[in-house]
């Protein structure tokens, strides 16, 4: 059974993006940060009739320290690990007051989403709460000073996976949160990237116009934590997709489509742009390359298995 209605887009593009800024300049994110790109675009699309929620994460801090604030819409912060349920609580309470038309969105980091916040996220998804959940994935706990998360890729340096003389970076692989979300059979799950803005805008707009639980995970480089040039955010994000380190797809009511076919360029270029991978041995780079190939192969099979023609 289809669990959603809507999903129509008028086709917002970079050119037709509303001019009104609801997430304004003056926020204090580091130069080149990917997260505010996500938030700014999403707020333009969602519009003023929106209530937002943020957990503890970089966004909470750069979005405004009391009495300053970069948002022109209401927001609530409660804690780190309860974004999905707080958004759901807001939505249910607004509905109760007859304010059904208000968009409720939670923006959260990868740690607040896939690690400590996963219980509340999974619960809200299972109950098909009518919210939009946007995870900006910068692959570590940045707000607390670059510690590894479940989303941190293999080999990456973080302050809790240091490039030591015995062990060089993270020994485990990136957790595939979007696929876990797909397994919840929610109306909409998609991945996006700040390196592919047109695709990102389309997905945000589509998600906005649907009902039920909608999950978007957007790849958003963190130059500070990734030890990279602040001018290369978009380039790095593009390379992640082109090398198969990050895959763009979407699932609408159980049908999965690939948004961009990975070119499967060698991962070397992507890794070389970031200091967090500087210490990697050839052996480790080979492991990452192998992971990317394998992931790509699995993703293609997955997309094939859940394609439109397979839906009876």
């Amino acid at each position, binding site marked *: 059974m289809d669990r959603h209605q809507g999903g129509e887009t008028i086709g917002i593009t970079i050119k037709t993006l509303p001019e009104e800024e609801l997430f304004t300049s003056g926020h204090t994110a580091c130069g080149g940060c990917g997260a505010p790109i996500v938030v700014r675009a999403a707020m333009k699309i969602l519009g003023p009739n929106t209530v937002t929620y943020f957990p503890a994460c970089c966004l909470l801090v750069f979005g405004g*320290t009391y009495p300053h604030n970069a948002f022109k819409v209401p*927001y609530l912060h409660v*804690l780190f690990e309860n974004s999905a*349920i707080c*958004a759901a609580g807001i939505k*249910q*309470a607004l509905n109760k*007051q007859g304010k059904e038309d208000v968009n409720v969105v939670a923006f959260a980091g990868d740690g607040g989403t896939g690690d400590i916040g996963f219980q509340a996220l999974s619960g809200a998804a299972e109950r098909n709460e009518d919210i939009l959940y946007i995870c900006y994935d910068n692959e570590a706990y940045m707000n607390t000073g670059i510690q590894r998360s479940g989303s941190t890729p293999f080999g990456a340096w973080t302050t809790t996976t240091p490039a030591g003389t015995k062990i060089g970076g993270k020994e485990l692989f990136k957790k595939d949160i979007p696929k876990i979300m797909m397994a919840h059979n929610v109306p909409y799950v998609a991945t996006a990237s700040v390196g592919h803005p047109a695709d990102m805008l389309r997905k945000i707009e589509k998600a906005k116009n649907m009902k039920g639980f909608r999950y978007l995970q957007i790849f958003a480089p963190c130059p500070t934590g990734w030890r990279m040039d602040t001018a290369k955010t978009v380039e790095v994000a593009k390379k992640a997709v082109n090398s198969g380190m990050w895959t763009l797809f979407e699932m609408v009511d159980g049908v999965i489509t690939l948004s961009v076919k990975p070119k499967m360029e060698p991962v070397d270029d992507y890794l070389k742009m970031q200091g967090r991978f500087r210490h990697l041995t050839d052996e480790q780079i080979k492991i990452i390359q192998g992971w990317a190939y394998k992931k790509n192969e699995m993703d293609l099979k997955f997309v094939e298995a859940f394609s439109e023609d397979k839906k009876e």
Partner: protein
Amino acid sequence: MVKRVVTGNYAAAFAAMLARVDVIAAYPITPQTFIVEHLSEFVNDGLLDSAFMRCESEHSAMSACVAASATGVRTYTATASQGLALMHEVLFIAGSAHLPVVMPVVNRTVAGPIGIWAEHNDTMPQRDTGWMQVYVEDNQEVMDMTIQAFKIAEDKRVLLPIMVCLDAFILSHTVEPVDFPDQDKVDKFLPPYRPDHAVLDPKDPMIIGSFSPPEYIQEVRYQTDETMRNALEVVEEVNAEWAKEFGRDYGGLIEEYKTEGADAILITLGTVTSTARDIVDEYRAAGKKVGLVKLRFFRPYPTEAIRKVASKCKAIGVYDRAVSFSAGGPSWIEARNALYGYTIPVINVLAGLGGRDVTEPDIRLMFDKVLEAAEKGEAENEIVWIGTRGVKP
């Protein structure tokens, strides 16, 4: 008014319906489960028109209540023991953001070892979260205080969340005759909640929970403290109004029983109070000058009321169903703080932890200890464990 024979859990659930709560979010735990089940029945039978969020944990249930309350609606949840411990982190937000969530807590021992019977070591450790706490004695009081709780919590001078604490099984699962207040009278007593301090609405954007530097947080603490103090007065007012409208007077912050002319007064909280009342009657009949104070509100703490009691007796005993290790029972610690500078002995009697029955002989022993202290002007032991294997009381 209709009289029905119901459990404490039923009274707690029915009171939520009478209060016309907008959003309920809850998670089951023994011995609170029946509250969630009854509410589910009310919703599914079309009797209760609330958004009902069947969450995946208490952490989420409390988060949902906090978030919903932040939009300006009336919210309710209920829990016990481990569930309350899991909520701990979220409780502070309700207190500091002035969100008047109402929550019956069925007092149950917190592991370990795991058990399901009455102890106050779930609610007592939450005393500094900015929540009010009222401890009740019977199922009528569960009903009445759950309704009053909304009125106290939503008062503009207070705006703080509140726990209605009822002892596991002794109330939660035991049936007693309860007067069910009429809906129209409750509606008159408790008008709809219409806040202006916390309303998430795009038409008038407001930010709640902003990251805040030291320049601002201390004032937030002061305000929570101040409004908690304001609640002392509001509790009394609401009690008086309830007494007038519904004919039941609980005494407000504390209830005194035969304290006039008493040399030895025992301060109890929760269900032990009923047994203690009987023992007071028995001792008085035998010419022993004892009296009883039922401590109803633990937060706000009724310092002045306790001082007044102390100024008319020779010794005080404070009963606790929880212990702060190496320091004594929490209610006793509070009473001693209130009575700093008073010269009468104030002793602590601990019994019933983990849900052990507190029997009539136990309570006689408590009064005997306080009488002895009153006579001697001092106590041999300040902290007395009663009914503990291998420990001399």
